């Protein structure tokens, strides 16, 4: 796969998002975020394997926010809760802030290379070394301190169950959607999300639907402005069966 070339290019979702916006020479606004939403999701899917587990959930959260922003742009009649409105605005603010720090870090890197730096003087330079141990120093005291150092060494990264769970929910959703499409040719989005326990799940479902539509595993249609979104098995799946 060609995506190997891009591995490690982006450490985080904000970096990716910023590069997409800057690549199109846009300012950071809700409109430009909506414009790059698809590209972001594409990259997220194609580079899924190169994203570290501890960062993947943040990639997905940003994806969910982008989907919200995009649906708002596409369907202005949709109403959003205060919480959703806030999360959309929050992404814009965060991205602007991230950009400022990214720029600042580049300036700092240049300062490192500028050759303008200061040097400190070694403590008590030239003063004689005099044997002056602290009171109470013993082999056991050293043992205690050494054990404390060993105890502070971080254990090899433990697998973090919580993250895995969070990350798996997206992929589970895609899998179970595919599963149910085998049984029924059509499926309503509302029906699909009826069992959702919170908004995040709804968003993840929607993300899954978009993803499958992109892969042409399903066909999405909507009967009128307020109609339910209908999902049908796509051409690709039919060919396979």
């Amino acid at each position, binding site marked *: 796969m060609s995506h190997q070339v891009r591995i490690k290019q982006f450490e*985080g979702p904000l970096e990716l998002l910023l590069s997409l916006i800057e690549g199109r020479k846009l300012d950071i606004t809700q409109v430009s975020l909506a414009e790059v939403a698809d590209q972001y999701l594409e990259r997220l899917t194609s580079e899924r394997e190169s994203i570290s587990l501890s960062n993947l959930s943040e990639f997905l959260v940003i994806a969910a926010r982008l989907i919200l922003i995009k649906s708002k742009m596409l369907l202005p009649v949709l109403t959003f809760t205060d919480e959703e409105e806030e999360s959309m605005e929050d992404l814009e603010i965060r991205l602007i802030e991230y950009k400022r720090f990214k720029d600042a870090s580049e300036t700092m890197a240049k300062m490192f290379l500028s050759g303008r730096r200061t040097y400190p003087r070694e403590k008590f330079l030239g003063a004689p070394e005099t044997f002056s141990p602290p009171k109470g120093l013993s082999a056991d005291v050293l043992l205690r301190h050494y054990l404390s150092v060993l105890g502070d060494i971080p254990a090899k990264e433990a697998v973090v169950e919580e993250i895995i769970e969070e990350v798996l929910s997206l992929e589970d959703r895609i899998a179970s959607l595919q599963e149910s499409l085998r049984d029924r040719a059509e499926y309503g989005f509302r029906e699909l999300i009826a069992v959702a326990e919170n908004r995040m799940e709804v968003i993840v479902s929607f993300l899954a639907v978009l993803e499958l539509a992109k892969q042409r595993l399903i066909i999405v249609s909507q009967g009128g402005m307020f109609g339910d979104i209908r999902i049908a098995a796509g051409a690709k799946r039919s060919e396979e069966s």
Partner: protein
Amino acid sequence: MNVNTSLSVASKIESLLFLHGEPISLERLAKALSVAADSIDEGLAMLSEKYAAPESGLALIRKGNDVELVTRPENASEVESMLVDDREETLGKATMETLAVVAYRAPVTRSSIDAIRGVNSSFSLRNLQLRGLIERRPNPLDAREYEYVPSFRLFELLGIGSSEELPEYAELSRDARLPVHESTESAPETGVKGGPSDDIA
């Protein structure tokens, strides 16, 4: 305080800074010289002024309550040749970003850094501590968490005398959305997750 005493305090501060080499706290200077804190301030101001002159080869770095005497930044290349054991600092993009957040936002917790960068910063933070570019200390608001501050070494490498000399410090050091920031700042670490990823659900 009369002028002679001020001059003499400045002279003694300079002697002690020269001897001590490493950063020293203003309290310790005041105690060593048995003078009030504002005499130390006055003495340091006098020294700063002196070091601004073109024939000076010295400079001061101030960070919080600590002060350090160092060589003049413009003389770096002449001085360099005389020193051993000074490796180039080459830092990756991610580490530089983390360093910038710590430099401008100090004291700052890991969860706040993660929130700004949108990624987990523990690896970068560890790397920066190893290189002595940042330091960590317990967060006074939450004992389970650390907060990070730049080190004197960072200021030495950047050739600056204080945080305020960082480009656009005034703008970047304060959070545009302070209420949000405050809540994330004091929030306890939520494991590796980091960042305000929970506020959507």
